[in-house]
């Protein structure tokens, strides 16, 4: 029987301090207050002073409340029984189902030995041309969707979840609006995907400390399934809320802030989560798709900025479309040479021309006379946005490539595209009499 301590010395924000012996760093404790019991984690030791972060928050905790140390760090139950279930950030059921206690595993484990990683090689097809053609998603990739509040990022996430070829999905909701949680649940349910999904959802009204646990719990469970050979897709929305929770706690702990109040280890903290994305040789894989909302649509804000340095690319979602500029899948080169031989050339060529279209558009808006070249570009830009960028377009990669050639042929001569002559010879549509691509 472990000792119970009943003298809390300091309470500051969500952090309480007690005097106790034989406590280990990272250990869990149970704080019993008038409002119920809450777990707490040891975050600092100094002689016999133990600082704990209380998961349900410091409000209502009294100096006389009991603290009982549990002798182990944060754990979560792992078994097939998790599938189809919905839990909160602390791992408690949110769906009125039974609590799971068997086969407990630790969360936040060590990172994978780089020497044991393998080169990603499988494309995850989504049927969205801006992803499949221009920035292919690859198994074991970690990729955030950069967006701003109000954009349909959760809808995009749900659509990718439904269409992507994976064995199971783990949805980690961090500070999720209750409506959005219901949206995910209903969409996956009506799509028949609920039985291969596990939810760990922290909603906006839940205690802030619990939001910090969501990525770790989701990824610890994902890791176990991956080791058992499953291809797991982990969706984390919204990682900006995760970073903001860290900021809030760091400030209450009086840590020296580095940039706009965020703690100096923001990069390392985010990296240790995203780096859980992996392809295990001889077993399964973890692919992470996150959402990072950019406060004020500012990509230089510390959260998107640090995220961008960690993840293998990003999708910009703006005005309901995945932007071709800035969006990048760093791993696409691993897979897009095995699809069709014109894939890379079409990808680069079309984006280059779209960039030129943007310049012409700018000139036009400033009232300059449009040259013949500008006129061609304007037509191209219009077609590109309609046939490729629109999120409602749902075609396989090969169809998207053909449609790309058609758009080029409708607007330009082969010389003007900057594409290599031999490719043009092979793929240039035979008839290009100005008719619309797929109108």
């Amino acid at each position, binding site marked *: 029987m472990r000792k119970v301590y009943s003298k809390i010395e300091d309470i500051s924000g969500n952090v309480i301090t007690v005097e106790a012996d034989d*406590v*280990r*760093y*990272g*250990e869990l404790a149970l704080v019993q207050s008038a409002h119920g019991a809450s777990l707490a984690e040891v975050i*600092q*030791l*100094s*002689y*016999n002073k133990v600082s704990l972060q209380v998961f349900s928050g410091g409000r209502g905790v009294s100096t006389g409340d009991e603290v009982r140390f549990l002798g182990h*760090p944060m754990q979560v139950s792992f078994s097939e029984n998790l599938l189809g279930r919905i839990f909160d950030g602390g791992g408690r059921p949110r769906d009125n189902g039974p609590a799971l206690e068997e086969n407990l595993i630790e969360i936040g*484990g*060590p*990172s*994978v*030995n*780089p020497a*044991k990683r*393998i*080169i990603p090689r499988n494309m995850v097809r989504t049927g969205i041309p801006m992803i499949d053609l221009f920035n292919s998603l690859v198994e074991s990739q970690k990729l955030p969707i950069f967006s701003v509040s109000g954009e349909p990022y959760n809808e995009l996430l749900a659509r990718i979840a439904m269409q992507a070829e994976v064995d199971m999905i783990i949805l980690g909701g961090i500070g999720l609006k209750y409506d959005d949680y219901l949206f995910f649940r209903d969409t996956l349910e009506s799509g028949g995907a609920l039985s291969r999904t596990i939810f760990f959802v922290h909603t906006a009204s839940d205690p802030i400390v619990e939001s910090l646990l969501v990525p770790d719990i989701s990824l610890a469970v994902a890791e176990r399934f991956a080791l058992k050979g499953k291809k797991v897709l982990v969706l984390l929305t919204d990682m900006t809320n995760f970073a903001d929770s860290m900021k809030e706690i760091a400030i209450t702990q009086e840590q*020296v*802030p*580095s*940039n706009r109040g965020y*703690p*100096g*280890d923001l*990069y*390392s903290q985010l990296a240790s989560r995203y*780096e859980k994305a992996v392809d*295990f040789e001889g077993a399964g894989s973890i692919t992470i798709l996150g959402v990072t909302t950019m406060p004020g649509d500012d*990509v*230089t804000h*510390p959260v998107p*900025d*640090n995220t*961008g*340095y*960690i993840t*293998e*690319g*990003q999708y910009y979602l703006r005005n309901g479309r995945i932007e071709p*500029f800035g969006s990048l899948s*760093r791993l696409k*080169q691993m897979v897009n040479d095995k699809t069709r031989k014109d894939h*890379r050339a079409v990808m*680069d060529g079309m*984006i*280059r021309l779209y*960039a030129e279209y943007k310049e012409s558009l*700018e*000139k036009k808006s400033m009232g*300059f*006379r449009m*040259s013949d*070249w500008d006129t061609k570009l304007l037509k191209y830009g219009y077609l590109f946005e309609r046939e490729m960028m629109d999120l409602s377009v749902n075609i396989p990669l090969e169809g998207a490539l053909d449609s790309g050639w058609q758009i080029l042929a409708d607007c330009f001569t082969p*010389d003007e595209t*900057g594409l*290599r*002559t031999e490719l043009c010879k092979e793929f240039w549509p035979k008839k290009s009499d100005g008719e619309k691509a797929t109108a």
Partner: protein
Amino acid sequence: MTHATGKVVGVNGNLVAVEVEGQVALNEVGYVVLGDQRLKSEIIRIRGKRTEMQVFEMTRGIGIGDPVEFTGELLAVELGPGLLGKVYDGLQNPLPELAEQAGFFLERGVYLDALERGRKWKFTPRASVGATVTRGDTLGTVPEGIFEHRIMVPFNLQGSFTVEEVAGEGEYAVTDTVAKIKDERGTVHTLSMVFEWPVKRAIDAYVERLKPADPMVTKVRIIDTFIPVSLGGTYCIPGPFGAGKTVLQQITSRNAEVDIVIVAACGERAGEVVETLKEFPELIDPKTGRTLMERTVIICNTSSMPVASREASVYTAVTIAEYYRQMGLNVLLLADSTSRWAQAMREMSGRLEEIPGEEAFPAYLESVIAGFYERAGKVRLKDGTIGSVTIGGTVSPAGGNFEEPVTQATLKVVGAFHGLSRERSDARKYPSIHPLESWSKYPTIVDPRRAGYARELLFRGNEVGQMMKVVGEEGTSTDDFVDYMKSEFLDAVYLQQNAFDPVDAAVSTERQVHIFDLLFDLLASSLKITSKDEVRSYFNALRQRFLDYNSAAWDSDEFRKLEQEIRGMIDEKRGDYEQAAKDLMAEITA
């Protein structure tokens, strides 16, 4: 001598406070004993009996009162034959061997020998008995891949020594005795092929430092021609995320014309290291016929690995680079990314509650960065041979803003600046090095005056481009428009390079000089075209041919055929040299 011991009295993240019995030194290594695990740590502050240590592992589970054992030694790396081809973490723990022992995950507290103890090396003695030697002198050699690995008098032995004994020719393991030397006081030192050197001290067993003057060819046109790097020089690559820093580093690690490449993956993505890790053993270096791995050492402390060993990793890398330099070799160290290393310092500084400098980086940031880059250099060794360490570091500035402390501190101490631009990478113009903002203090591989002329043209083209945004194409004179198109053309066919095209990915010095001459004729001449539309279609067509030409193998039939076509197209429209070019050519031939 017994070493100090201590007990843990505080834990805060990866910072552990220890109360010490006995004498300890700053940067001394100690182990926190946690059951049957021993966690490596380094002393970073001493205050009376209380010392603070950064733990190179996860600190979960450490409790008050846990014992700490000190070693009396500073953080050091093992130097000896067998480093090449290895993959280490920041503390020189070999990762593949660790994986064999611990499986998929990085088990904490497992430390393995950096150099294989069982492997035998064919030793050939060089020093003779009775000879006088000092540190860094060669006692014998062993073949390591294509190199002759010098077994040297350890750099930490000061003074002069007399050789008492040298092992005969034969097969030895790294720890076998290969020589005995006697110092001036008569003490005999027994030497094996391996010794240790503290990572945070520069190896200085050379006669003098020389000015870096010979180019380090990277086979990237924009670098070699316009913003070159010299052997023994330093350069930095700052750029926002997604601008292609790491790809550029990978290309350089493959193609650079140096003897040895040390890749320090410091706090970046593990996936990127894996590419190097898995591909290098397969890729053949055309120069030597051996795999690239045989000339490479990878130090890999990726972003999710403990932050304290990230701080150590760049020092581990540079120490190994200096060691091979001592053999008269040209070594290139690629550090990706120095910002993560600076952030590691910031994290520790924060935990130590030091007074923060700009953006919470520690006040000593600049001097530490300067100290690191100053370990590059070209040196003359005692036997007259020349060796060099070239350092290329990427910088990941917060928000892509080059005004931040790490970029600024780096720019002060490097010889070349390859600034990557988001604008160029968005437009898929790779490598996205900004041709106008970047600079270099090192000599180019082509004729410098003509390179200067071409660069002037880029500036002029940019000016015209800016102007055209205001006054439109119709308000621009044809001459200006031609300049603009020329600079765009130079950008498209010379500055940009397709890293995924087998031919275009690496362009030899010979080919660069050849193409540049061809281009220069066009760039320096007036054109016999009058309408802008004609100018545009002329350059479009020329660009098309040139891109095909760039991917034709050097000196192949196709190459010659395309070159003839291009020459024809140029000669057809080419007028006289522009006045400035005329003057320049007169100067060159004079």
